[in-house]
């Protein structure tokens, strides 16, 4: 059953009507989600499967507009909690866990062997030793490149193993000479710059350092943090001008047109690139180059999750559904439909999609660890301050000292030593 979110009255009316219409003896599980049309259809298909296997349960999904959901969840968790709600892992779920609005589901993890099958997502689903989330999908980040732009600038196209950092920067010189932006981004919404920063940080100092940095444990004026900005500074001259005034989709247009050669992005952008006219023939993917030799490779893969609310009316059946969403079969099916990667290591991906298989390969061999993305690894306020600093550095690299001092001031305020 799917409803779209309406005003409180309309929503209540719809719920009343639908519960009345559905056979009385079914037990209802309510689920609030924020899906675009394709993921929504995939979720409906999963609900149908689940209901077929559990005919006594009726899962009712209420879908919200993606942007509105960020606001709505704060209201409905208190005022009118569903049984299940979509959200994000790591620090993004922390406020809801701390306010006691998300319920502990460690038992679901234990009873279904999820510690093992969802091993890579354990850290991001855990707060204070308890699990509060069921991760069911993620997607890789990395460098997407335009083969035509490489050809136009006479630069050798990277192989599947990527290139070294020195080689990448040397290529950038050639792109600059050919009047092509080596790396493009559109940072008016801030987060795209965090993708670049995260990778340089992960590659310079490794996963643990980056994770500590996001957690406010490391000084921005430490030599390690400066080393990250030093590498960031080497890339800075080759990033598209005026990126601060354009959106990531505007930059995607530059990339598709061959005015830019590389784009540090998440896999969701492939759809936009292909809509713009690119194909598997001229669109390439590589992992971000190694900077400090010998570091275990870590990757960036934001995870989407489902949560049991503390106000759930039917937690028993909701937990059944959570276990189902954690299963390999459900994750294989949902992610195949949406074009993302399952978090269950026993699930499989579509072998015909080169970007999915490359991503699956990259993530399953990332022995360094999986980062969630800056704005999910760091607390909200810290995340924002960081992203503004990264953006400013890309616009005004000469302001480095001021940027670091300000970030450090923010850190000391948020995480008193």
């Amino acid at each position, binding site marked *: 059953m799917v409803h779209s979110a309406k005003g409180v009255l309309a929503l209540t009316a719809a719920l009343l009507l639908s519960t009345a219409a559905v056979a009385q003896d079914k037990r209802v599980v309510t689920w609030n989600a924020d899906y675009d049309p394709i993921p929504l259809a995939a979720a409906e298909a999963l609900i149908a499967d689940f209901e077929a296997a559990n005919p006594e349960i009726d899962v009712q999904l209420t879908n919200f507009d993606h942007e509105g959901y960020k606001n709505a969840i704060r209201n409905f*968790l208190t005022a009118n909690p569903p049984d299940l709600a979509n959200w994000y892992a790591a620090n993004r779920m922390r406020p809801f866990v701390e306010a*006691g609005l998300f319920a502990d589901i460690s038992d679901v993890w234990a009873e279904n062997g999820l510690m093992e099958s969802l091993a890579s997502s354990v850290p991001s689903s855990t707060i204070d030793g308890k699990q509060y989330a069921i991760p069911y999908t993620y997607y890789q980040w990395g460098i997407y490149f335009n083969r035509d732009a490489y050809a136009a600038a006479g630069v050798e196209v990277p192989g599947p193993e990527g290139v070294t950092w020195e080689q990448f920067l040397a290529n950038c010189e050639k792109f600059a000479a050919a009047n092509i932006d080596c790396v493009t981004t559109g940072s008016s919404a801030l987060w795209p710059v965090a993708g670049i920063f995260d990778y340089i940080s992960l590659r310079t100092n490794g996963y643990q350092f980056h994770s500590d940095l996001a957690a406010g444990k490391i000084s921005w004026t430490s030599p390690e943090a400066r080393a990250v900005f030093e590498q960031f500074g080497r890339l800075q001259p080759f990033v598209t*001008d*005026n990126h601060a005034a354009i959106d990531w989709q505007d930059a995607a247009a530059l990339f598709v047109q061959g005015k830019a050669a590389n784009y540090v992005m998440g896999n969701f952008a492939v759809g936009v690139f292909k809509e713009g006219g690119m194909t598997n023939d001229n669109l390439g993917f590589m992992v971000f180059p190694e900077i400090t030799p010998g570091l275990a490779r870590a990757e960036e893969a934001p995870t989407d999750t489902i949560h049991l609310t503390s106000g759930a009316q039917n937690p028993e059946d909701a937990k059944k559904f959570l276990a189902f969403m954690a299963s390999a079969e459900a994750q294989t099916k949902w992610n195949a439909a949406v074009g993302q990667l399952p978090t269950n290591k026993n699930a499989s991906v579509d072998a015909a999609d080169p970007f999915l298989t490359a991503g699956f390969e990259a993530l399953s061999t990332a022995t360094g660890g999986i980062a969630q993305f800056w704005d999910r690894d760091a607390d909200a*306020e810290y995340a924002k301050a960081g992203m*503004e600093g990264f953006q400013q550095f890309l616009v005004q690299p000469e302001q480095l000292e001021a940027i670091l001092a300000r970030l450090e001031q923010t850190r000391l305020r948020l995480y008193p030593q």
Partner: protein
Amino acid sequence: MAQATQTGAAARWSQRKIAPWLFLAPGLFMFTVYVLWPIVQSITLSFYDWNGLYNQNGEFTGTFVGVANYAELMTDPAFEISLWNNVKWLVLYMLALPIGLFIAIFLNQTVTGIRLYKSLFFFPFVISQVVVGLMFAWFYAPNFGLFYLLTEWITGDGTAILADPDLVTYGIIIAGLWPQIAYVMILYLTGLNNVAPDQIEAARLDGAKGWKMLWYVVLPQLRPATFIAVIVTVIGALRSFDLVSIMTSGGPFGSSRVLSYYMFEMALGEFGFRMGYGAAIAVVLFAIMMIFISGFIWKMWRDETER
């Protein structure tokens, strides 16, 4: 008989005592609930740390922190930038007065079709600030925006004004001035209509013209219009939320923030939900506005008691 008239008069007198409050009741009630009481609540909230959440039992989850929010404001660079940008807005918005007066004088003629011209010049004020913001965002857009192309043509290197941390606020202020000038213009046009013709003629016979006439004869008569224009311009400058939100969301890296936007960002933005801190920013904004409100009320008080 006399008795009856007296009770009748007494009833009417007490009716006249009660009637105003009955007429006031609905409006006063709404105004208290939605305006006066929230001001008190916001001031209270500014002494709390609250993420906007209630717990499962519907209980407020905030904690009292005293003046910590205000103390933090003192050292918050984003607050400083916002405050400084508000000053820029206030000062530059005042340009609406001379420009609006200039256009009003330009249009104060009686040629055919002038009425239509006046309406069309007034047009920008009628349009939503959201639309004005989108129009100017298009005008400033990097690579193809008309302003960008113009600067590219003149200097050889295009200026993407909304990506430039030093220029972005001025770019937004210009967008805001457009409708504000239109507003001021219409105030002055009405004012000019009511300038006493005999005084002008008398001054003309004395040989006054041009600037002298404007400064010594016309402007003094436009004082009421100027007063209203200053008030609406100050309010417009401090309410600059819409344009900042539409054109830059405060960016790049917070360079175009103003207090009204920063407050929203802190309280309801994606990385915000610091309701107490947001409330503290709002209290500062309120205090700034109170300076102007007091001035306005004081002048009204004088006018009222003069009458």
